[in-house]
């Protein structure tokens, strides 16, 4: 191994007094060599992000600061060098890309101006030269029509394009080190695969050392040369990718890897032929623009659901998979009548729910319930957990005492302490809140549970627990479930049958195992090919 680019020794990052733990990062040692991708893996709160920010001198000072240790970069220690020198290094020798490409770019500046700044602050170049370099960069990261992209504002580009622009900006001055903080987490899987490929391509071309922060072992398997695992601020294991992924030593690493859902679909279960819910030719379009006397510019029409037909059999889990904008959430919301579909039938048993009015719908509400994606936003922060859960039955006419007893029972079913009844949602962790959300849906005794990305906001170990819980409950209560997800690994472990959606249309349906073995539609094939780490633990 050549001399390391970066040597982190005994790094301590202190948190403000009164935090859960004194150090966000504690006694961490790490080396990064040129032309190497080092993945730092960990769950939320493991300190992986703060460690990467410490390298850049981007800690939210003065509350969070480096208390001890050194970060050697060449002859210098990044912890102690003056701010002016650190500014020179940032953006030229060490640069960074972030998770959320929308908020990480200034919304009111063109892409061209934002790239131009990097040149202006680090090099002496003429305006024309800077422009040419910037266009060249945008071309390198494969943005279509670089000259037009220069003039574009961030909101005019897609998520993947924005991340490409970010990468172009970070690589503008050919840095020795690139720090990537969850750069693909906010992207769709096919876009993620492209961005990972791009990062790898750029890194090989420029011999860059990459510090890649992620929570996703699939991504690690695809991209890492070496891996370091962090837990609670400490680095518990480090080694080459092959060692850590295939032969983990530390129990925490073993647990994490164990929690990653396998891509091999689970054995199909015996199924009843009787459908409990049928969706026939469901159509929903969103319109915007147009309007007053035709002066409103062109009207934009989005077909969020186009002629969607689905069948949910008794006791099974039907997965709807697709990327963002595929219409999978719209279909779910139409089914539970949170939004109104224009056409089609939603047959629950023999009743068509679609044309029912508010009052006529109410008795059917209890039979079909929903679990939402974001456990933080979907519970009213000013209402106690007990009230959140018991509100449903009380509205349905169940006496208060009975509703309370049922609520307490369900809290136990979803694995929460009964004392949760009198607490507020903010006192719970993400996984616990999702359990509350599930209890809220189950208390009404539904026949059909619609779960919209119920685990995508959770850490992988919590995700495994929630999936296990959903499985148990489905068995125990003979539920039928519609499970919306973008994650094919999760789909493989949860769903009996799959429906693949793109642009509002169902492109393929069938038993999960069959679709994984022999995908017929090209889009399904593309989705399967893009799953990160598919060659690792695929079998």
């Amino acid at each position, binding site marked *: 191994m050549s001399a390391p680019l970066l040597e982190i020794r005994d790094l301590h990052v202190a948190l403000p007094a009164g935090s859960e733990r004194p150090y966000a990062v504690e006694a961490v040692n790490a080396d990064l060599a040129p032309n190497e991708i080092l993945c730092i893996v960990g769950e939320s709160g493991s300190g992986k992000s703060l460690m990467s920010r410490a390298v*850049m001198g*981007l800690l939210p000072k003065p509350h969070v600061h480096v208390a001890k240790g050194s970060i050697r970069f060449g002859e210098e220690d990044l912890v102690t060098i003056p701010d002016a020198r650190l*500014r*020179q*290094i*940032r*953006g*030229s020798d060490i*640069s*960074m890309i*972030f998770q*959320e490409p929308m*908020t*990480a*770019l*200034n*919304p*009111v*500046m063109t892409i061209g101006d934002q790239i131009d*700044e*990097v040149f202006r*602050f*680090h090099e002496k170049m003429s305006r024309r030269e800077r422009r040419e370099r910037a266009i060249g960069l945008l071309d390198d990261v494969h943005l279509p029509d670089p000259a037009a992209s220069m003039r574009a*504002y961030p*909101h005019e580009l897609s998520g993947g394009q924005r991340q490409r622009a*970010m990468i172009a*900006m970070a690589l503008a001055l050919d840095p020795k080190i690139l720090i990537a903080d969850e750069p693909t987490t906010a992207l769709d899987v096919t876009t993620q695969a492209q961005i990972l490929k791009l990062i790898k391509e750029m890194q090989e071309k420029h011999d860059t050392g990459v510090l890649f922060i992620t929570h996703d072992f699939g991504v690690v398997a695809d991209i890492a040369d070496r891996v370091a695992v962090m837990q609670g601020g400490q680095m518990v294991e480090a080694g080459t990718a092959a060692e850590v992924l295939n032969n983990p030593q530390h129990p925490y690493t073993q647990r994490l890897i164990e929690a990653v859902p396998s891509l091999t679909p689970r054995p199909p279960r015996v199924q009843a032929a009787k459908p409990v819910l049928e969706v026939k030719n469901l159509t929903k379009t969103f319109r915007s*623009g147009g309007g*007053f*006397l035709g*002066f*409103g*510019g062109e009207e934009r029409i989005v077909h969020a659901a186009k002629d969607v037909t689905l069948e949910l059999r008794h006791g099974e889990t039907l997965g709807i998979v697709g990327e963002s904008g595929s219409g999978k959430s719209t279909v779910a919301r139409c089914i539970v009548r949170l939004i109104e579909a224009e056409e089609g039938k939603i047959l629950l048993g023999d009743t068509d729910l679609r044309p029912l009015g508010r009052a006529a719908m109410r008795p059917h509400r209890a039979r079909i319930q929903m679990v939402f994606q974001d456990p933080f936003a979907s519970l009213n922060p000013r209402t106690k957990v007990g009230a959140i859960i018991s509100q449903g039955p009380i509205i349905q006419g169940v006496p208060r005492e009975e509703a309370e007893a049922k609520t307490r029972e369900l809290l136990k079913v979803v694995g929460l302490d009964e004392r949760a009844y009198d607490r507020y949602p903010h006192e719970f962790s993400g996984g616990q809140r999702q359990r509350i959300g599930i209890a809220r849906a189950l208390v009404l005794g539904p026949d059909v549970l619609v779960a919209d990305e119920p685990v995508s906001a959770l850490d992988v170990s919590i995700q495994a627990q929630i999936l296990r819980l959903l499985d148990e409950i489905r068995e125990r209560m003979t539920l039928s479930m519609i499970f919306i997800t973008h994650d094919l690994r999760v789909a493989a472990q949860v769903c009996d049958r799959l429906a693949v959606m793109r642009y509002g249309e169902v492109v393929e349906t069938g038993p999960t195992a069959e679709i994984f073995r022999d995908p017929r539609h090209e889009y399904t094939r593309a989705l399967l090919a893009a799953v990160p780490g598919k060659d690792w633990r695929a079998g």
Partner: protein
Amino acid sequence: MSRTAKRLRYVLKRLLQAIPIVLMIVVVNFFLLHMAEGDAVDVLAGEAGSATPEYMAELRAKFGLDQPLPVQLFVYLKNVLSFDLGYSFRHEMPVLELVMDRFWPTLLLMVSTILLAVGFGIVLGLLAATGLNTWRDTLISIFALVTYATPLFWVGLMFIVIFALNLGWFPTSGMKNVAAFNDTWSWANIKDVAHHLVLPTITLSLFYLALYTRLMRASMLEQAGMDYVTTARAKGLTENRIMFVHVLRNALLPVVTMAGVQVGALIGGSVIVESVFAWPGLGMLAFEALFARDLNLLLGIFLLSALLVVAVNLVVDIIYSSLDPRIEVS
């Protein structure tokens, strides 16, 4: 379509949309004013004393006040559409002439007030935010709090006492010196008007200045915590560049929105200030017209104010769309 063509189309659309809005305002105003007790004839008769009911009925017939309300409204609307705002019995002048005469002083006062309040509000908010929790921040916050809490008319009176009477720096009232009473655009004249404008403008803008200062400070602090600021820092930019180029432009957006909304309120505030400083504007005219039950004149003033608010809102929206590219002008 190019950005300019889009913008033109947008302005045209907004102007067309304004027509029904303004007509609605005219109708609502008309009914509101007729719900009030008494009319111009009552006031005229009261002032003249000893008017017989026959004479009053004759006057009403002459002014068209004896017609049923819908007919009066119809006649009024027809006149408005042909730019005839009627005749002021009180001032014995056509309303249009009277109102246009008083329009320019009010516009002058409004524009200078907005510029002062927004301009200084932004600067003070910026200074407070960049020196967070230092003496500068504290001082500006105290200043904003005090001006925010002080009534307009009292500030006006105190300014007159201190700066006009005791120090003699500025004139106490009016818009021009009587000696220089002519309407030419001579340098001396402009200087004279500007001299008279200082105290009313400062008085009227103080309250808004405080508001924009606080808003700007909060907005700067909010924006400073955004991800793109971290990106800018990671690019190696200086703190000054980050503050004045990246954060400032984003932080301006809420202030501009707020200023746009408050233009209407500003006309209300100008009634007080114009009365205190005897500024010959619409506010003063409205005040007099109200007590003389000069409904035609009041309606004219309301119409003009409504047009003014609609126009200023349009201007603010256009400024906003050039500040924030995410707002599409289509």
